[in-house]
């Protein structure tokens, strides 16, 4: 299957004859600052808005002075952890998705591809069905280990001979592993309705009801993954030109792919561990980032870092508000908030090439 069509059109901005103007650079920088401002705003909204009405000024006051009142408990014990989880999960999925699309040179790649999400799911199924674990905190390490194991297997399977994993083979290896794990999950769950009953609420993807301990567990992984990701921005730009051109430009193809795969595992594994499988963010946010910033990974990755949590937290706030007594899970809302925007963008402009 020709993924080559994508490859030949790929060109980072810094090609000879199309030097980046200083103006374009500063527009991107300002855009990033604006996006950061929006993120701060959405984060505050996520602390303020919820099923219980708390005036904005009260929210602001108890945020800084935990006076032990009921409002303070709601905000400090429920809303702050939830907002932080949304922030971290958003970063993990957005940056993980951007890395995945870059390393596979496939604009359709997302954490669902490459087996990461399915690895986490299979591991959670094992935890529920065979070990009787039913708390989110209990799932975290399982999900993470499952994501890591699946990633390693996919990477080994996708590695062509002595050289390194090629994009097309990575995608197919991901599809193969996903298929096998999906079969395993379904077989176990259909034979064990009690486990299915637990699993269906994890599978939908939610950031509600997570406490600070989940935040503390996943934050180091997201942080490490983010740093590793940003360090690979430049080599990934070279990789976008194709393996040979990239090598000619001095990129270490194998090392870059390996480090990127590690970063993807850290980011997506931790995100899925905390919130369950949320697929749309990792797919769509990098596209939006490329539409705004062009194909240069040194801009795509920071934009994804900021925009993905905006989508996560924004969707979560809307889900809390429109559901009334019954909240809509963030996994549903990201799709319903994000997909129309994504479709509109795809219609409006030619989506930026990788």
């Amino acid at each position, binding site marked *: *299957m020709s993924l080559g069509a994508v490859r030949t059109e790929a060109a980072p901005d810094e090609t000879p004859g199309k030097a980046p103007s200083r103006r374009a650079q500063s527009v991107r920088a300002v855009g990033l600052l604006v996006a950061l401002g929006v993120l701060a705003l959405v984060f505050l909204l996520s602390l303020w808005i919820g099923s219980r009405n708390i005036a904005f000024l009260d929210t602001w006051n108890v945020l800084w002075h935990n006076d032990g009142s009921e409002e303070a408990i709601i905000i400090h014990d429920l809303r702050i952890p939830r907002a932080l989880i949304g922030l971290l999960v958003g970063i993990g999925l957005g940056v993980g998705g951007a890395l995945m699309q870059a390393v596979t040179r496939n604009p359709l790649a997302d954490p669902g591809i490459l087996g990461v999400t399915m690895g986490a799911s299979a591991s959670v199924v094992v935890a529920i069905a065979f070990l009787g674990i039913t708390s989110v905190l209990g799932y975290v390490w399982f999900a993470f280990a499952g994501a890591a194991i699946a990633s390693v297997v996919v990477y080994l399977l996708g590695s062509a001979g002595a050289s390194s994993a090629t994009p097309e083979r990575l995608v197919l290896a991901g*599809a193969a592993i996903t298929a096998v794990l999906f079969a395993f999950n379904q077989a176990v769950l259909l034979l064990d309705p009690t486990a299915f009953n637990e699993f269906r609420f994890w599978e*939908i993807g939610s950031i509600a009801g997570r406490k600070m301990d989940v935040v503390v567990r996943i934050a180091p992984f997201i942080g490490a993954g983010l740093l590793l990701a940003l360090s690979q921005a430049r080599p990934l730009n070279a990789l976008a030109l194709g393996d040979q051109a990239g090598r000619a430009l001095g990129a270490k193809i194998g090392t870059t792919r390996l480090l990127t795969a590690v970063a993807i595992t850290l980011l997506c594994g931790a995100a899925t561990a905390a919130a369950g499988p949320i697929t749309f963010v990792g797919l769509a946010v990098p596209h939006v980032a490329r539409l705004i910033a062009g194909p240069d990974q040194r801009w795509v990755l920071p934009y994804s870092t900021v925009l993905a949590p905006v989508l996560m937290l924004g969707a979560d706030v809307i889900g809390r508000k429109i559901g009334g007594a019954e909240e809509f899970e963030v996994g549903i809302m990201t799709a319903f908030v994000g997909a129309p925007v994504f479709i509109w963008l795809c219609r409006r402009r030619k989506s930026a090439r990788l």
Partner: protein
Amino acid sequence: MLRTRSERVSFRVDARATTVALALLAGVIVVGLIAMTTGDYPLSVGEVVQTLFGQGPPGADFVVTTLRLPRLLAGILVGAALSVSGSILQSVSGNALGSPDLIGFTNGSAVGALLVIIVFGGGAVQVSIGALVGGIATALVLFVLAYRGGVHGRRLVLIGIGLSTMLLSVNSYLITRASLQEAVTAQSWLVGSLNGRGWEQVVPVAVAVAVLIPLALYYGRRLSLLELGDDKAKALGVHADRTRLVLVTVSVLLAAVATAAAGPIAFLALAAPQLARRLTKAAGPSLVASALMGAFILTLSDFAVQRVFSGTQLPVGIATGAIGGLYLAWLLVHEWRRNRAAG
């Protein structure tokens, strides 16, 4: 390479592709024979043939013509339909992931089916109709959203994925809000199953396949030209937009009809065309080999769930996932070893 030329139509026959196709056909026949003759009520090949002509042993008639034959035919037809559908979409979108599962047709069918199961509490036939309506409605919405002076493969797939995620979250929502019993029914439909499929499911698929697959084969010969890019295809005399529109429509209909009959059989549409392409080593997609590969994997998988896990009534989607996935993995490892030996 073989080249035969009749008066008006010319065929180009690739020896390797032909061998692969014949081998797959033989595989389908062998699996079919075994599936027809074994089981709780063993029959010889001769007895099966006699039964088909109305002269079999007593009791065989029900087993053969009501239980085994429709299920086998459903497997062959649904497998072929899904695989051709996936093959076309992968070629048009230029992406190994461009299968009907990914761009929303299957999720649209699933929404239709789940609404019938969970909200209206309908039976098997209503579920099929719900799935058919859901799949075709989704495709129409997708066309309207993606159409801008032509169906651009890449835009179609991207918008399809957007639409697909929305539909998927509708499904997740329905499943979490349903009672456990309904949720389990819905979930097992979502995996794709041939359990209890009778003539009422086979006949519509057979009609659709008889009309659509020849159409796909006729236009499909231009697919490898389309893969060269629109400009080159146009220079070679292919009307790119029209060809693409016809082919995508055929692909949608095949997927919708197959899904209505058997549910969204997991990974078949994605894996079977890839396997066929890897085996034939053809430059373009080979629809005949894909169709046979789909039929072979699905009948083999269905045989496996019936016999290997007998008594549990596991849906066939579990086996297609496992068999298709493991085979794809094996093929990748195999290539890896060969590359290593070569270099």
